[in-house]
C-alpha cells in the first residue's frame, strides 16, 4: 500500500522549499532546451510561436511547487516583521502594554485556578465527596466524631472507600539535629487515606489499613515530598530513620509524591501519622473514644454509578434505622431511629474548601480588574494602530492598485496585530511568573504561610493563548478593516498631511480613546475605593496599645504540662522573659487580640434575664495581673484583679469584664458586685475594663470575662507571652528563645512576632486587594496618558495647516495651546461621563470588601475625576506646545 498522494505531495513541496530559486532556473533551462529542439526540427519562427508565453509558463510551474496558503502566510509574517522594525518605539510600547495586560491576567488566572478551580492531584477526584454531619438537624458541623465515622464505614453500601483525617498544627520534630517546630504541622490519617485517594509513593510505602489496627501500635510516619527535601535533602537514606515527633519515636516508611499536598488547598502537611498514634502525639485523652468529641474530617469515594444524592439518601436511611456505634470503653450506642440527624454529602474534588471560601470574592474582583487592564491596553493599541494606518494610507493604496485583494490586505494587517500579540504573550508569561511570586508574597492567611505552588501548566498556557487570540481580534480587526477600506485614487494623489478619508479614522481613534478613558475611570474608581478602605481599616482604634509589643505563642500541653504545673510554668516564663535586657514588661494572655482563637462557656448571670431561657454565652480570656496595664486597657469601674481573686478547683473567685459585657448584661445598673452563677460556684464581678477588639475589626467584641492564670490552669492549651520592648524582633529573638529554653528545653514555640504584624496579617486580604488594584489603577492611568497623547499628537499633525492659518491670522501661541488642551479635556470629559455610571454600578458588587466606606462615596469620585483631568493636561501639553510652535509660513506652503 503506497502512502496517500496528498502526503507525498506535501512532503515533496516541503523538500523543495530551500531549493526554490534553483528550481526556477532548472525549469527555465528545460524549456530552453525544448525550444531549441523545436527550432531544430520545425524551423525558428514556428518554434518560437508554438512555445507560448514563457514567463507565464515559468510562473505557473513555479506556482505548483509553492506550498499554497502556508507560503502566503509566511510572506505576511515577513511583512509584519518589517513593519515593526520600521517603528521600534511603537512596537516596544505595544508589546510592553500587551505584556502587562496579558501577564496580569495570566497571573491572576493561575491563582484562581490553583485556589478555586483545580482538582486534587489524586486518582479520579470527581468521585470524592465530603461528609458533613448535621447532628441536631439544624447546625452543620464540618467535623465528625470518630465512632460515627467507624460505624458509617462498616455499614454503608454506597462508598468504595472512606477515610478520616485531622490536622495537628503544633508539632515538634527531632530528626537528629535538634528540635524544630514543623511549619506546616502533621496530619493524622486513618488507614484508608492513601489507598482511597489512589496516591503512589515517591519512595518507600504509604500508610494503609494495616497501620490502622492497634491504638498506639504503629510507630511509623510518612514524609511529605517538600519536607523530605528540606530535612533530608531528598536522600533515600531517610527511609528507616527514626523521627521524634512530639516526643514519640516514629520510623520513616515512605515519602508522598511531589505534586501531592494533602486534601486541603493551601495547607500541605509536613508529615502523615496513623491516627492510632494520636495519644502518643497529643499527650491527652484519646479523642477517638468519645462520641462527644468532634474533630475529624471525613471524605469518601463514591462507588461507580452512585450519585451524591443517592449516597446521602442511603446514609439517611442508615441513620433512620438506627446506627450502631461502637465505643471502646463503653457499651455500644445506637442512634435512635427517627432522630433528626442526617449527613450532607458534598463534592470534594477540590478537597476541603476553607481557602476558596475565604479568597473567592477578592480573587474574582482582582480577575475583573486584570481583565479591565487588558481591555484598556487593547483599546490603546487599537487607537494607535488606527493612527498609524491612516499614515500608511498611501502604501496601502499602492498595494491595492497593484492588484492585492482587500481581504488579503486585511489578513496581512491582522498578521501584524497577531505578531504583536504573540510577542506580548511571550513577555506576558514572564510577567506572570514574577507577578505570581509577588502575589503569593502579598497574600497570607495570617497564621500560617500559604502552601501553594503556582507553576504554569497546560491550563495556564491554554488560557494565555486564548487571551492573546481575543486580544488580537479586539485591537486588530477594526483598524485593519478600516485601513483596507481606503479609496485608491484620492489616496494616491494626496500627501500625508491631507484630509478627506482620514476623518473617518480620526473619529474612530477618538471613540477608542474615550472608551479607554471610561474604562480607566472604572478601574481608578475601584482602586481608590480599596485604598481608602484599607486606610480606614488600618487606622481604626483598637482599644489597646499594640506598638512595640512582641507576642510569643506557646503550647506546653504536648510535652505533658497540665494542671498547677502549667500555672507555675507560665510564672517562671514571665519572670525569665521580663528580665531579658530591653524587655520593659512581660504579661500573659490565653487569647491575644487578633490571635484567632476563642474559648467560651455558658452560665446564668445575676440580674440578667436571657431572652431564650438558655444561659448566655460568655467568652473567657485568662490573663496575668499586669495584662491590662501592659496593653493600656483602661479601667472603667471597680478594680483590677489581684492574687486573692484566684480560686481553686479550676474556676476563679473573681473576674473583670469588658464594656460589652457590662452593657449587655448590666442594663441600667452597674455589673460590679454581681455574680456569674456557675452551679455551686458564684463568681464575683469586681471591675469593668474598656473594650478591646477581639479577632476582627469588622465585628463587635463579644462579652468577655477575664480572670487570672492561677485559677484556670487545667483548661489552657495555648497561651501567649506579651512582651513590651523597644528592641526589634530579629535582634531579641534569640534571647527570648534561650530564656524559654532555660525554663524547659522542650517547650515548643508556636509563633513569635510583633503585635503589629499579627494585626496586619488579619487584614492581608484587604491589603492585597488595595495594593493590586492600586497597581492596576496606576497602569490604567499610564495607558490612558499614552493613548491621549497619541490621539492628540495625530490630531495636531493632521491639522497643521489649520493651525498655521490661525496663527497667520493673528492667533497667539497661547490661544492654540488652549485650543488643543480644550479638545483633550473634551475627550476626557466624555470618557468620565461614560465611566462614572458604570463605576457606581460596579461598586455595588465589591461593596462587601469595603470597610466603613460607601461604594458611592463622593470624595472618591472627585479624586478619580481629578486624576484623569491631570493626566489629560499632561498628555495634551506636548502636542499643544508643538502646535504652538508651528511656523505659519511652512504650514501654509505644505500642500
Amino acid at each position, binding site marked *: 500500500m*503506497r502512502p496517500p498522494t496528498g502526503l*507525498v505531495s506535501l512532503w*515533496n513541496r516541503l523538500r523543495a522549499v530551500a531549493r526554490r530559486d534553483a528550481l526556477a532556473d532548472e525549469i527555465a533551462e*528545460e524549456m530552453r532546451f*525544448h525550444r531549441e529542439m*523545436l527550432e531544430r526540427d520545425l524551423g525558428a519562427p514556428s518554434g518560437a510561436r508554438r*512555445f507560448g508565453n514563457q514567463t*507565464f509558463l515559468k510562473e505557473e*510551474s513555479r506556482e505548483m*511547487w509553492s506550498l499554497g496558503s502556508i507560503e502566503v502566510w509566511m510572506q505576511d509574517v515577513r511583512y509584519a516583521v518589517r513593519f515593526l522594525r520600521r517603528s521600534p518605539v511603537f512596537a516596544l510600547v505595544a508589546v510592553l502594554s500587551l505584556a502587562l495586560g496579558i501577564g496580569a491576567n495570566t497571573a491572576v488566572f493561575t491563582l484562581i485556578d490553583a485556589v478555586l478551580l483545580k482538582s486534587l492531584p489524586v486518582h479520579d477526584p470527581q468521585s470524592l465527596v465530603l461528609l458533613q454531619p448535621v447532628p441536631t438537624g439544624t447546625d452543620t458541623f464540618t467535623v465528625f466524631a470518630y465512632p460515627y465515622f467507624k460505624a458509617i464505614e462498616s455499614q454503608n453500601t454506597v462508598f468504595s472507600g472512606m477515610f478520616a483525617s485531622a490536622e495537628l498544627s503544633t508539632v515538634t520534630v527531632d530528626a537528629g539535629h535538634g528540635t524544630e517546630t514543623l511549619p506546616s504541622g502533621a496530619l493524622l490519617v486513618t488507614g484508608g487515606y492513601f489507598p482511597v485517594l489512589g496516591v503512589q509513593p515517591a519512595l518507600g510505602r504509604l500508610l494503609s489499613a494495616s497501620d490502622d489496627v492497634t491504638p498506639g501500635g504503629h510507630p511509623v510516619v510518612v514524609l511529605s515530598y517538600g519536607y523530605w527535601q528540606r530535612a533530608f535533602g531528598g536522600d533515600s537514606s531517610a527511609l528507616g530513620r527514626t523521627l521524634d515527633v512530639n516526643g514519640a519515636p516514629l520510623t520513616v516508611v515512605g515519602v508522598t509524591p511531589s505534586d501531592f499536598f494533602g486534601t486541603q488547598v493551601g495547607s500541605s502537611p509536613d508529615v502523615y501519622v496513623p491516627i492510632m498514634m494520636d495519644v502518643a502525639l497529643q499527650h491527652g485523652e484519646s479523642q477517638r473514644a468519645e462520641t462527644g468529641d468532634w474533630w475529624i474530617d471525613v471524605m469518601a469515594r463514591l462507588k461507580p454509578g452512585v450519585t451524591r444524592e443517592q449516597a446521602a439518601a442511603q446514609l439517611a436511611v442508615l441513620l433512620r434505622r438506627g446506627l450502631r456505634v461502637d465505643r471502646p470503653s463503653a457499651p455500644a450506642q445506637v442512634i435512635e431511629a427517627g432522630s433528626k440527624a442526617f449527613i450532607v454529602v458534598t463534592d470534594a474534588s477540590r478537597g476541603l474548601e476553607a481557602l476558596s471560601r475565604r479568597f473567592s470574592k477578592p480573587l474574582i474582583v482582582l480577575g475583573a480588574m486584570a481583565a479591565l487592564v487588558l481591555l484598556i491596553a487593547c483599546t490603546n493599541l487599537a487607537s494607535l494602530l488606527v493612527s498609524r494606518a491612516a499614515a500608511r494610507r498611501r502604501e496601502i493604496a499602492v498595494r491595492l492598485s497593484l492588484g492585492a485583494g482587500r481581504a488579503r490586505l486585511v489578513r496581512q494587517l491582522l498578521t501584524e496585530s497577531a505578531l504583536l500579540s504573540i510577542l506580548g504573550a511571550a513577555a506576558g508569561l514572564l510577567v506572570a511568573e514574577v507577578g505570581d511570586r509577588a502575589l503569593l508574597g502579598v497574600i497570607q492567611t495570617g497564621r500560617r504561610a500559604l502552601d501553594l505552588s503556582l507553576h504554569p501548566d497546560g491550563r495556564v498556557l491554554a488560557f494565555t493563548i486564548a487571551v492573546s487570540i481575543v486580544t488580537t481580534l479586539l485591537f486588530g480587526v477594526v483598524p485593519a478593516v478600516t485601513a483596507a477600506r481606503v479609496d485608491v485614487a484620492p489616496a494616491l494623489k494626496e500627501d500625508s498631511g491631507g484630509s478627506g478619508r482620514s476623518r473617518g479614522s480620526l473619529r474612530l481613534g477618538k471613540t477608542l480613546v474615550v472608551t479607554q478613558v471610561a474604562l480607566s475611570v472604572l478601574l481608578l474608581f475601584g482602586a481608590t475605593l480599596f485604598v481608602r478602605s484599607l486606610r480606614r481599616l488600618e487606622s481604626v482604634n483598637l482599644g489597646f496599645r499594640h506598638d512595640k509589643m512582641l507576642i510569643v505563642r506557646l503550647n506546653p500541653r504536648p510535652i505533658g504540662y497540665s494542671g498547677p504545673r502549667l500555672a507555675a510554668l507560665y510564672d517562671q516564663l514571665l519572670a525569665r522573659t521580663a528580665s531579658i535586657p530591653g524587655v520593659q514588661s512581660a504579661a500573659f494572655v490565653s487569647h491575644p487580640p487578633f490571635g484567632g482563637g476563642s474559648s467560651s462557656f455558658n452560665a446564668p448571670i445575676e440580674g440578667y434575664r436571657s431572652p431564650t431561657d438558655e444561659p448566655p454565652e460568655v467568652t473567657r480570656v485568662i490573663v496575668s495581673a499586669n495584662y491590662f496595664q501592659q496593653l493600656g486597657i483602661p479601667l472603667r469601674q471597680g478594680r483590677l484583679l489581684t492574687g486573692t481573686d484566684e480560686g481553686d478547683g479550676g474556676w476563679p473567685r473573681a473576674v473583670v469584664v469588658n464594656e460589652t459585657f457590662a452593657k449587655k448584661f448590666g442594663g441600667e445598673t452597674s455589673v460590679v458586685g454581681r455574680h456569674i452563677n456557675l452551679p455551686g460556684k458564684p463568681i464575683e464581678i469586681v471591675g469593668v475594663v474598656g473594650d478591646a477588639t477581639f479577632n476582627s475589626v469588622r465585628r463587635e467584641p463579644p462579652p468577655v470575662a477575664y480572670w487570672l492564670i492561677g485559677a484556670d490552669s487545667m483548661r489552657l492549651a495555648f497561651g501567649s507571652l506579651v512582651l513590651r520592648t523597644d528592641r526589634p524582633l530579629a535582634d531579641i529573638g534569640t534571647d527570648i528563645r534561650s530564656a524559654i529554653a532555660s525554663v524547659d528545653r522542650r517547650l515548643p514555640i508556636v509563633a513569635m512576632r510583633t503585635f503589629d504584624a499579627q494585626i496586619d496579617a488579619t487584614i492581608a486580604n484587604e491589603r492585597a486587594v488595595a495594593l493590586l488594584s492600586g497597581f492596576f489603577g496606576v497602569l490604567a492611568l499610564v495607558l490612558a496618558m499614552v493613548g491621549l497623547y497619541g490621539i492628540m499628537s495625530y490630531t495636531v499633525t493632521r491639522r497643521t495647516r489649520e493651525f498655521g492659518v490661525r496663527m497667520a491670522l493673528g492667533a497667539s501661541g497661547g490661544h492654540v495651546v488652549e485650543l488643543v488642551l480644550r479638545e483633550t479635556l473634551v475627550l476626557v470629559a466624555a470618557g468620565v461621563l461614560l465611566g462614572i455610571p458604570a463605576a457606581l454600578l460596579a461598586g455595588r458588587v465589591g461593596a462587601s470588601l469595603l470597610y466603613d466606606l460607601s461604594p458611592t462615596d463622593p470624595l472618591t469620585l472627585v479624586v478619580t475625576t481629578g486624576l484623569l483631568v491631570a493626566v489629560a493636561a499632561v498628555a495634551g501639553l506636548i502636542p499643544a506646545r508643538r502646535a504652538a510652535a508651528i511656523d505659519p509660513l511652512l504650514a501654509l506652503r505644505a500642500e
Partner: protein
Amino acid sequence: MTEPLLPGTLEMLILKTLTLGAMHGYGIAAHIQQVSRDVLQVEEGSLYPALQRIRIKGWVKAEWGQTPNNRRARYYTITAAGREQLGEEMESFGRVIDGIHRVLRTN
C-alpha cells in the same frame, strides 16, 4: 490537426510513455504525437505543468543527463508508485471508454 486533451488523460499518457524508458520533455511530446499519428499534439503549456504535477505527486523522478548529442537535458523516469497509478488510470479509462461506446452504439 490537434484534439484537446483532458489533463488527467495527459498524465496517463506521459506515464505510459515513460514505461518505455527514461525520456526528456521534448522526447515525450514527440513520442505521443508520433504514435498517435499526429492526432494528439501536446502543447508545451500543458506538458510542463503536467510534468511538475506528477513529479510533485511522486509518480516520476527527474534527473539531469546528457542527450546523444551531448546536450544537457532533464530526463524523467517512472517510479513504482507511478506504475501503480498508471495501472489504475488505464483501468478506469477503459471503463469510461466502454461506457461511451455503449451509449453511442444504441440505436
